[in-house]
Structures are given as C-alpha cells and as structure tokens.
C-alpha cells in the first residue's frame, strides 16, 4: 500500500510542468511567507523580548535581562499565582463539567429526544456570539443596576455583590464561559455523531448492549478524532481565556488570569518585556495541546 502510494506520488511529481511548479510555488510560498512574517517573526521576537528590559519604543534601548523578568514573575508577583490558579480552575471546570455537559447534550440531541430541535437551537445561540459580546451581555445582566439586580428589586444603593464578591465570582465567570462553551462542544460533537454509521448502534442494540455500554464501547471509540479535538479545544480555551474577563473587569486585576496579565503589561508604557514573558509562559502551557491538535488534524487530512 505504502510503496504504491509513494510511487504514485513520485510519478506525479515528475510530470509537473514548469507552469505547475510556478503555481505550486506561489500557492505554497506566498502563504508560507506571510505565515513566517506574521506568526513566526513576532513569536520569536516576543520570546526574545521576554529576556530583555525594554520600553517597547526604540530598539537601541534594549538591555539584556537574562531570566530576571521570569524571576520577577515567579518569585515577586503574587498576582501571577492568582492568575495561574484561575486558569487551572477554569481548565478543571471546563474539563469536568462544561465539556462533558456539551457531549451529553449532543448525544441526547442526536438521539432525537423530544424537543431536540428546540434544545439544539437554544444551546447553539450563544455560540454565534463572540466571547467579547458574551462578556458585555453578562456584565450588563449582573452588574449593580443591571437587569438581574433590577428584577430582584435591588437598586445601586442596595446591590448584591457579584463580580466583586470573591466567594462567588469565580463560579459566576465560569458559568458565563460555560454558557457559550457547552453549546460549542455540543455543536462539534453533534457533527461528529452524525457521521457515526447508525448500523453500528443498531448492531450493538441487537447484541443487547445498554445505552451506556453503546456510548462507551461503540460511539466513543468511533469518535476518537473528534474527542481529541474537543479535549485540545477545552485546554486551549481555558488557558487563553481573556475576552469575557476583560469585558467585565477591564485590564485591572479584578479577577486576574494569564491573558489579562499579558495585556495589562504590554499596554500602557514601559513594561512590554514583562508582558512578553507572561505571553511566553502562556505559549509554553498551550504548546503541548496544540501539537496534539495539529497532529490529529494532519492525521485526519491524510485519511
């Protein structure tokens, strides 16, 4: 099989006309050039910047700082650990609650339970909204003088503390994020489920498998590629979380998270190197899941 494929490839490549070569070079070369220029150059620049002291304006002002920015972050910035903690809670919440709920929902809708069309559209609606818009909506709903507080008869002089109450605000933020994430996962999983051969399900039913056994032993393994993509998306979305928190708390550290620290340090003046260091930390945390994700997508393409 493999050798035939290779031979076929080789034969085809030999028959490329100069025009084909030109076309291919353009099709591969131009996007690659842009990709390197717009992704790799800034990425490597950011990594380099994180090892310097620099105000971010004149190249000539750059001073080598070695690991000092990282040392400062790990040992001298308590808010960094608060941010990591929030990212971890976010990840655990998405991994154990939001994502499984999305999968469950997709499974139920795929079984065409009563009213499945309604549920499908209801959970799908938040996915249409960007995370920033989601943040604006929920800020408006829950802030002092907002819709929910108004419904509860609380005016601004007698409000319920929500975003500023550290006993609950983490769960409120995660609830808001899940509001969109569950629908997103549902959508991804549903499209995967649609492609599962229904004869598999019938066969397992005939063999006397329970609903749960069918799901675990038949559906889940068949859906492996989708599962991996969902896991990766869950991890990356948890780590790069920014929009919702920014819309609610702004660039202050009202509810610190890594993405906000990157932004807070790079905007304003003079601390871009520390922001770059936060970005590198974020990048290192994301790269594992990203590589897995890419491997999986390539494997898909080859099939």
């Amino acid at each position, binding site marked *: 099989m493999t050798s035939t494929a290779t031979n076929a490839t080789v034969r085809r490549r030999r028959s490329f006309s100069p025009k084909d070569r030109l076309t291919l070079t353009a099709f591969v070369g131009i996007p690659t050039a842009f990709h390197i220029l717009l992704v790799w150059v800034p990425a490597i620049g950011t990594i380099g910047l994180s090892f310097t*002291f620099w*105000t*971010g*304006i*004149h190249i000539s002002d750059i001073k080598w*700082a070695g690991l*000092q920015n990282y*040392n*400062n972050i790990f*040992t*001298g*910035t*308590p*808010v960094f650990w608060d941010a990591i903690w929030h990212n971890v809670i976010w990840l655990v919440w998405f991994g154990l609650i939001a994502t499984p709920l999305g999968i469950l929902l997709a499974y139920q809708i795929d079984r065409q339970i009563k009213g499945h069309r309604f549920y499908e559209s209801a959970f799908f609606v938040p996915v249409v909204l960007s995370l920033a818009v989601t943040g604006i909506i929920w*800020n408006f709903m829950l*802030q*002092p*003088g907002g819709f929910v507080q108004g419904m509860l008869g609380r*005016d*601004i*002089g007698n*409000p*319920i*503390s*929500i*975003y*500023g*109450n*550290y006993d609950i605000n983490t769960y409120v933020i995660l609830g808001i994020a899940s509001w969109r994430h569950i629908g997103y996962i549902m959508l991804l999983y549903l499209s995967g489920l649609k492609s599962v051969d229904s004869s598999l399900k019938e066969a397992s039913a005939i063999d006397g498998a329970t609903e749960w056994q069918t799901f675990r032993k038949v559906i889940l393994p068949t859906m492996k590629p989708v599962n991996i993509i969902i896991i990766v998306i869950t991890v990356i979305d948890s780590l790069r979380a920014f929009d919702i928190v*920014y*819309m*609610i*708390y*702004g*660039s*202050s*550290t*009202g509810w*610190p998270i890594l993405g906000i620290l990157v932004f*807070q*340090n790079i*905007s*304003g*003046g*003079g*601390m871009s190197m*520390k922001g770059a260091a936060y970005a590198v930390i974020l990048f290192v945390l994301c790269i594992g899941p990203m590589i897995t994700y890419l491997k999986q997508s390539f494997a898909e393409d080859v099939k």
Partner: protein
Amino acid sequence: MMSEQNNGISRRSVLKGAAVGGIGLAAGGSLLASCGSKDVGPMMWGGRGLEESSVQWHEAVKTAFETATGNTVTLNMNDAGAFQDNLSQYLQGTPDDGFDWMAGYRMQFYSDQGLLEDVSSVWDSIGDQFAESYKIASTGSDGKQYFLPTSWYPWGLHYRKSTMTELGLDPENIANWDDFMKMLEATKKKGLIGYALGDKGGWEAMGTFDILNARINGYQFHVDLLAGKEKWTDAKVAEVFKYFEMMIPYMNKNVLDISWEGMRDLLLQKKCGAMLMGSWFSGDFKTLSQADYDDLWIVPFPEINPTHGRDTIDAPIDGLCVAANGANPEGGKALVEWLASAEGMQARLDSGNTFTSANKGQDTSSYDPFQNQQLAVMGEAKYITQFLDRDTRQDFANPVVAPAIQNFLRAPKDITKILEGVQAQWDALPAL
C-alpha cells in the same frame, strides 16, 4: 487601563510630586497674540473622554478655535482608558497633531522616547500665562517643554448639600477624624452609604490611600514612599491601612463591583453621604441637570494628624501635547497654543465646562460657586500631589499597588502580608 467602561473624562493628571502653587489671580490676562493670521493648515485633535459633558466642551472649543483662527480642525474623541492603554502605539503610528494628556511623569516617559514634539516655542509665546510650577510639570528630562496645562481639579470629599442638610450634618465643619467617623455613623444610621467607594478599576481607591497617607504621615513621607525612599513595610504605612479599615463598615458592600462611574451614580441618585473623588465628574452632574450640579459640593478631606493638618491634596493637571509623528506638528503647536491660552480656556469655560483653568491670567468672574470652591480647596493646601498612579513608576502603580489595595479591601486582616508583598515587588523592579 481598560475597556470596561473604566475611564471617563478622567483621571488624568500627573507630575511627579512636584509641588504646584495655587493659581494666583493675576490681573489682566494677556490675550494670546494672534496666530490667526498664520496659515498652518488643517490639523487633528485627539480628545479623551466619551461622556456627553466631555464631548460637548471639546466640540465647542474646536468651533471657537476655527472661528478665531480660520483653521480647520478634525476632532477625534476617544475612550479615555483605551486611549491611555494604547498611547504608545498611537504615538508611533499616525497620531493626531495635538492630543489631551497629563503632565509630569506620564508626559516625560513619552518625551524621553522622542514621541512628543518640543513645544518650548509655545512656552516662549504664552509661558507668562502660567505659574512657574506648571512649567516644571511641563518640562521633560532634557529641560525642554512638551506639555501645555489647561485645567486642574481637586480630589476632595464630594457630597450633596441637600442630603447633608436632611441628615443635619455640616461637612464643612468637620474638625478631625472623630467628627468624620461620627458623620459616617450618622449617615449610615439613616440607611445611606457613609463613604462611597469603588475599586473595580484598581485605581479609584488609590485616592483614599493618598489622602490618608498625607494626612497621617505627611507630604514628605508620601512622596518618599512613592519614590522608594521609604518602605511599605514601615509601621507608618500599616497605620494608614488601620484608618482605611475603620472606614470599611461605612462603605457600600460592593466596592470591588463598581468603578468610578458607580461611585458617581451613588451620589447622583442620593444613595450615599460623601465620597472622595476628583471633581472631574461634576460635568456629568451638570449634564443631568443644573439643579443636581448646584447641589454638589466639595470640601477637603478632614485633618487626622495635627502636625500635618490639611496641608496636602491630590490636584492633577490636565493639558495637551503635540505628537512628534503627527502629520502637521506646526499645526499641532498652533492648536495647543490657542487651546491653553486664556482665550482658548475662556471658550471652554463659556461652553459650561466645570473644570478650573490652569491659566493664571484666566478671568474667573464667570466661575460658578462649585468652581470657586474647587479653587479654594486646592488653594488651601500647601503641597500638591498628582495621584498615586502618576506620582510613581508605571510598572509599580497599576501592576503592584492596585491589586494590593484590592486585596486589602477583600481581606483587611491580611494587610501585613500584603504590604510585605508590595515592598518585595518594589525591590524586584529593574533599575530605571
């Protein structure tokens, strides 16, 4: 700082600890030599603040400038917080020729980077209209001027006269801390918030820290602390937070939920007794109604330590800079010269703006009682500071002090640990 509608006309201001004397009411404001005859082409003006009151005076002044000089100005209003966050990028891109900004340290950072146009020639032309201390606040580290002051405002106790009358209180006669506590207690008993505070943005409560530190430990200690010459672990700083903590029972219970707009609304809707804030928000009262504006008053924060009395106040200076990368720097200079002159400021005051002019030649006869009271409150102080996030390093104020005060408001009992953390982070900062 940030989209979240933080920001406003704003907390601008600044200058590192330079003491600014009160504005003398010098007789006979010399009006600006005509720059109307000069053809300096169309220019752009970047304004900060999207509140109705802010947009209104910017447009009025733009029109007045165009009428007076025959030039054409394009006015671009920006969200104040976003503008501040993006200033570096803005100045390196295609900035407006003249733009609203802050004096002192905030200006110097950008002039040091060569992003601001030297406006010494404008100072040669209208410099005699400003107090010497304002010139110091407008001067970059190379000795040239990069800033033109336009207005300044006090951080004091704001309240509604009608509310205080109903409560039977007279904030103008608070002699000391005990009286102040009694006032808060009396307000609370009537079901109102004694001392409204918001700190969602992380900077709002710095005003309360500034004034408590100045009242308890004095101007010099405050300035030295922000310059790193004193330690945050000093018992004197812990003392400040002890007083701060005494005020917490009288605050709204959602301090970390609201930003300065939330504070303003509490006062607007008569939900609180008093609050410490910069007077810039008074324009929003006026936008709502003249009656609400007439009801607004300001007094200095009360004395705590008799040694220092009420000798210090945060009174930030706002003004204008010219961008070095603007399309028309000469036009920008002509613009800021006119805007900062007594004539330009008169146009701004005539539009109903509630700020007070930084121009010593300003005719103050048109000032309303609230503007005169702002001047009196600032004039009473011997030392003028700007504001914590303007009086110290940028990589310290917002990233370190802001979360520290927020953490204190969450858990006041952790203050020792919090202050140790602040000092450790100061010590870890790279040398400038």
